[in-house]
């Protein structure tokens, strides 16, 4: 059995989650402090990829990244590489669809953060960078971790936009989800079943992780001890 799709899916999801972590935190932090109207509008725009069909996201991404489109053509000209149909093209798709999950959970966590903690840090002379990374993030870590787990799971299972932007090339752009589709199309049911089982196993592990995080969160809110 060729394990390339698993490896490819995992690295796409990992890179995408790392990118979404920073993007999500950045937007969550700055949008939480905007006036209400602007916040509402930006919130809708940034959450849209979550509710759009993945094929619509894929189509929109191709409009931006395709080799005949302005951005794609410019990158091809300057760097001599296409933005689509490589293994990392899928990252554009997974970042777009998983970003709202990270953004929304992080924003929820930031909004329940007690502002007097940040103010206390400031009056004690701690830098704003320190307060963000060493006080705000650790205090909000349950929500942020949950956001990352959801984003990783979403990136791992992405099919629609990925297949449009990265296609399916065995040993190159194949991911678990595109491989399952390809195997079903070519009537290789036994192989398809294996990949289905792999996928179910990974998803189960992630759901368990989320439940574990949530139960720890509840315990914390009850004032129970923490390790």
């Amino acid at each position: 059995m060729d394990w390339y799709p698993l490896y490819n899916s995992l690295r796409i999801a990992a890179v995408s989650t790392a990118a979404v972590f920073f993007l999500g935190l950045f937007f969550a932090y700055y949008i939480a402090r905007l006036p209400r109207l602007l916040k509402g509008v930006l919130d809708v725009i940034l959450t849209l990829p979550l509710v759009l069909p993945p094929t619509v996201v894929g189509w929109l991404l191709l409009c931006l990244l395709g080799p005949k489109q302005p951005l794609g053509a410019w990158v091809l000209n300057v760097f001599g590489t296409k933005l689509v149909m490589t293994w990392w093209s899928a990252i554009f798709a997974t970042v777009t669809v998983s970003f709202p999950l990270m953004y929304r959970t992080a924003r929820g966590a930031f909004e329940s953060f007690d502002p007097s903690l940040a103010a206390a840090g400031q009056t004690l002379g701690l830098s704003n960078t320190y307060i963000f990374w060493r006080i705000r993030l650790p205090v909000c870590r349950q929500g942020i971790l949950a956001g990352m787990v959801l984003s990783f799971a979403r990136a791992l299972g992405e099919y629609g936009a990925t297949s449009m932007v990265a296609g399916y090339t065995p040993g190159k752009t194949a991911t678990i989800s595109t491989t399952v589709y390809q195997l079903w199309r070519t009537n290789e049911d036994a192989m398809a079943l294996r990949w289905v089982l792999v996928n179910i196993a990974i998803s189960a592990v992630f759901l368990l992780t989320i439940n574990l995080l949530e139960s720890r969160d509840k315990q914390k809110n009850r004032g129970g001890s923490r390790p």
Partner: protein
Amino acid sequence: MSLKVDIRRRLGSFDLAVAFAAEQECLALLGASGSGKSVTLQCIAGILKPDEGHIEMDGRVLYDSAAGICLPPQQRQVGYLFQQYALFPHMTVRQNIAVAVRQHDRRKDVTEELLRRFQLTDAADRRPARISGGQQQRAALARILASEPKAILLDEPFAALDSYLQYQLELELQNTLAAFPGTVLWVTHDRGEAWRSCRRVCVLEEGRSQPVTEMTELFRAPATESAARLSGCKNYAAARPAGQRVELPEWGLTLETGRAVPPDTVTAGIRSHHVTFAVPGAANAFSCRVVRIIDDVFETIVLLRPEGAAEDAPLLRMECAKEAWRAREKLPVQTVAVAPEHILLLK
């Protein structure tokens, strides 16, 4: 050591205009809830920005709208004790103090020293949620001192504590602050707390600050009705000046004041415990019907209606020792008096 504040800030319909100066002392900022006390502290600490004005500490300008100066809170060296203490919940008590130590090369020594001084050695490795309210307050104070502030702002320091804890902690807090070489602003709505800990007071009234006065002055001769309310006075009646006397039309009374009544007097205030039993014909004596008797923990509260009072006039509240009331309770009409010097003349 001094702190000068003169700021204005508008937020919706609420208009804050506060001006006062404090020396190296513990100055009370006394006001009802919603009078702008916390907002004032936050402006001084740099957490909120006023619309305009000037804040200066030891000759160093912290904020000046005209000169475009607004130092970030990190550079102000103003310690802030938050109502809920704002200890970092994911750090132990020791870590909470250690992060704030200003002398980085002596971090460990300073932290251990403060833990000892505030009797937190046993709680040092616990998180804030796992220690008592009193320990939380001590930890927050130790953390503030670790940052070596030039002034300390206390925002209702006992709001988060049960009252039975307060007495002991208040003594501790007074000792800590007595050793502190700088200005302390103590925000509270509790006149007793302010009286016990501060010698001078600035009263805040719906976002406006009154001139700083001696604490004793606030109780002896408050200038306005709201200052009188904050000082605990409970009886008020509309007043008309009449030379050395004051007319109280609502109660149908004219009382001696023993001093010239200022022409801008509009209200007279009488503290409940300054209403005393008297014999008919004594100075400032008048008779009243008993409307209601409330048995309090250590004394009896009697609500009286002066005999010449209008139907809708406020009742006169009297507080007296339980024995004193027992000796009198059979009488349907009581004669009471208020000493001339105990009538507060309010603008």
